[in-house]
């Protein structure tokens, strides 16, 4: 399969602090990838670099052959770890917003998912609870037919029912030809959904590979591999 994402010697420094250190990585299409690592390991920095919120201090990134910029942003669907809705908008207006900016936005799918959750499209954003806002945000992101989905901590701090809904939406709604990168440290909940994992330690790639291959090579499940790799990091 052709490479969807290509990172060549990518580093990111915040002042003198190294967040990512010369990362070389290729990500193929059609995979669900877990981006794993403890807090402060560089997961969010990597995701922000891929979606264009940060610029690398050194190195190159390309997505679908485009350098990070307007062209790459058009094929990347990004779910941050917080809600970003303008408070003055209604849910329906957010659908209009996504329709206007993203050609790959599947409005009927978004409307269907909102209806399934009984979320009123005419509800103003400021009246929605935090949990509902997170669901609307996930629906908007997953309703895109993107080439790459970047999901930053999508299941952190949510109840088990919401967690199932989120994982189910991610698995069912994403474009099968695309790749999904899920950043998390809650591996147990998503292990079964993952095709590959990337483990980041102190800004470096500590381990990368297919979940089946890693399980066979290490003779243990991904959670235990994670514990082995990050022993002494916590």
């Amino acid at each position, binding site marked *: 399969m052709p490479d969807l994402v290509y990172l060549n010697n990518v580093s990111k420094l915040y002042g003198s602090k190294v967040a990512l250190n010369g990362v070389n990585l290729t990500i193929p299409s059609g995979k669900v990838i877990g981006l794993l690592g403890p807090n402060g390991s560089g997961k969010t920095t990597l995701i922000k670099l891929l*979606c*264009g*919120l*940060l*610029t690398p201090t050194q190195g190159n990134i390309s997505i679908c052959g485009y350098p990070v*910029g*307007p*062209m790459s*942003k*058009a094929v*990347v669907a*990004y779910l*941050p770890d*917080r*809600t*970003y*809705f*303008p408070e*003055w908008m209604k849910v329906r*207006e957010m659908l209009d*917003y996504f329709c*206007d*900016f*993203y050609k790959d936005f599947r409005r009927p799918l978004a409307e269907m998912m909102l209806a399934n959750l009984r979320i009123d499209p005419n509800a103003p954003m400021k009246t929605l609870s935090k949990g509902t806002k997170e669901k609307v945000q996930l629906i908007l992101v997953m309703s895109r037919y993107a080439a790459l989905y970047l999901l930053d901590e999508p299941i952190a701090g949510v109840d088990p029912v919401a967690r199932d809904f989120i994982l189910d939406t991610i698995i069912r709604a994403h474009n099968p030809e695309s790749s999904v990168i899920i950043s998390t440290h809650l591996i147990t909940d998503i292990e079964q959904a993952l095709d590959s994992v990337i483990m980041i330690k102190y800004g470096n790639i500590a381990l990368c590979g297919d979940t089946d291959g890693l399980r066979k090579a290490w003779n243990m499940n991904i959670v235990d591999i994670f514990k082995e790799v990050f022993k002494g990091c916590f």
Partner: protein
Amino acid sequence: MLLTLLKHEYKYIIKSFSVVYALFFGITIVFKIMLHMFIAKDGEFSSTFTATLFWIFAISWYVFLFVIGLMTITNNSRRFKKSMFGPEGYLTNTLPVSTSTNIIAKIIAGATNYVVSYFAVALSCNILIIGIDGSGKAMKAISEGIGELFTEHFDYVFAFFFCSFFTYLAFLLFCYMLGALSSMIGGSKVKSFFIGLGLIIANIFVFSAIVTALDDTSALGIMFAIGFYYMIIAAVEFLIVHNIVKNHLNLQ
């Protein structure tokens, strides 16, 4: 994509300003009715209550005249900061548009808002004076004066608009720049205040130096010099804001 960005910026302006304009025109109409009563009764009111009400509306109208202009700038710069550097920045900065397009859309929306507010104020003044004895003659004289200015002193009119446009642009971008700097240094309002104050003082010195140096020059020359000065300032501010958004984004 610029048009799409503008569409959503205008939606925001309509939502946030429709109440302000409605209130302003409401006050204008009530003030006009009271003004007519005041004139009809030769400056005498039937009761203290009516007189108090008249002065309340008169003062409110005058306050609105100043506030509406100020609000367009503050509202636009607050919107810029919130949508680029607040949580909304996660949405705005990942849209498939370039950083320049994003900033330009906000500048155009801000300028349009300012112009609309200017016309709202002009319309309100017209509503107030229409129907008053001699207002027709006054309006005719004003429009003839404006027409004469455009035909006989177009160079001055052009210089005035050139100077005003870039002064406004530099001020708007100055507000954007303060928001961007404040976000870059971790949202410290005290530091941003001192940076802003320092830049304003520096601007006063440079501005005074330009005017002093051009002491013997005509008003036309001074207006063009100020226009060019603020054009350069606006360009520098744009580059600083662009650089912060592109390379030093520190989302809250």
